[in-house]
């Protein structure tokens, strides 16, 4: 454990800030349709929030929140949401990712497109955040091994 990780100030600030960082990440993902933001940016912020927690409270504590298995599942889930939306458009008789073809609101294809864009952004966000977290966990060595060395 390094000196920064033992600092009460740092631990308290991180404990208070991390929920707000994660909330902000969700806001950025959902805000993508109406202003600056989107799945890539929000996913990176979400991943950074978890990484900040893992940096201060330790890799093992971070892995308790997001385990390796969950991380792998999330990374593929996000891509499946995106590709599945594209497939849904094909099944509905349109082209790949032609959102207007999905018959949710038959008289208003633009409205359907709006919601499906949000849905797709969520998929991007899940994949990007899971990959960010897994990259961090993979290149950092767990504390239990550090103690042995």
């Amino acid at each position, binding site marked *: 454990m390094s000196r920064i990780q033992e600092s009460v100030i740092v631990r308290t600030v991180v404990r208070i800030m991390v929920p707000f960082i994660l909330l902000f990440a969700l806001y950025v993902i959902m805000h*993508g*349709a*109406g*202003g*600056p933001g*989107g*799945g*890539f940016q929000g996913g990176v912020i979400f991943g950074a929030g978890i990484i900040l927690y893992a940096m201060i409270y330790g890799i093992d504590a971070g892995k308790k929140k997001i385990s*390796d298995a969950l991380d*792998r599942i999330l*990374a*593929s889930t*996000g*891509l499946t949401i*995106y*590709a599945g939306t*594209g497939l849904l458009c094909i099944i509905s008789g349109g082209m*790949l*990712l032609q*959102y*207007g073809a999905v018959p949710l609101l038959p008289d208003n294809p*633009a*409205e*359907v*497109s*709006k919601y499906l*864009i949000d849905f*797709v*952004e969520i*998929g*991007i966000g899940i*994949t*990007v955040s*899971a*990959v960010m977290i*897994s*990259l961090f966990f*993979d*290149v950092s060595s*767990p504390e239990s*091994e550090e103690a042995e060395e």
Partner: protein
Amino acid sequence: MKTLALFVVILAGAMLIYAGQDLPAFGDINSPAYQHRMTQYFIENSLSESGVPNIVTALLANYRGYDTLGETTVIFTAGMAVILLLRRREK
């Protein structure tokens, strides 16, 4: 070796700065990006066609959704490659 690397970096940076002089000025109305007819089309039709007020998102997720799907796949593949190469196996 370090001097050579520094020289290469400075040379590449100087080339980029030199090439940057030819870029259109920020917000220049005569730049090709503003003059292209597709720009006019997207400004006029992106809201009614895709339903989102943000033109950037309309382009990213609707007009170029296939491209963004590829980008997401690239990130996913990179993550999986790092997992394959670096993840420590549980003993």
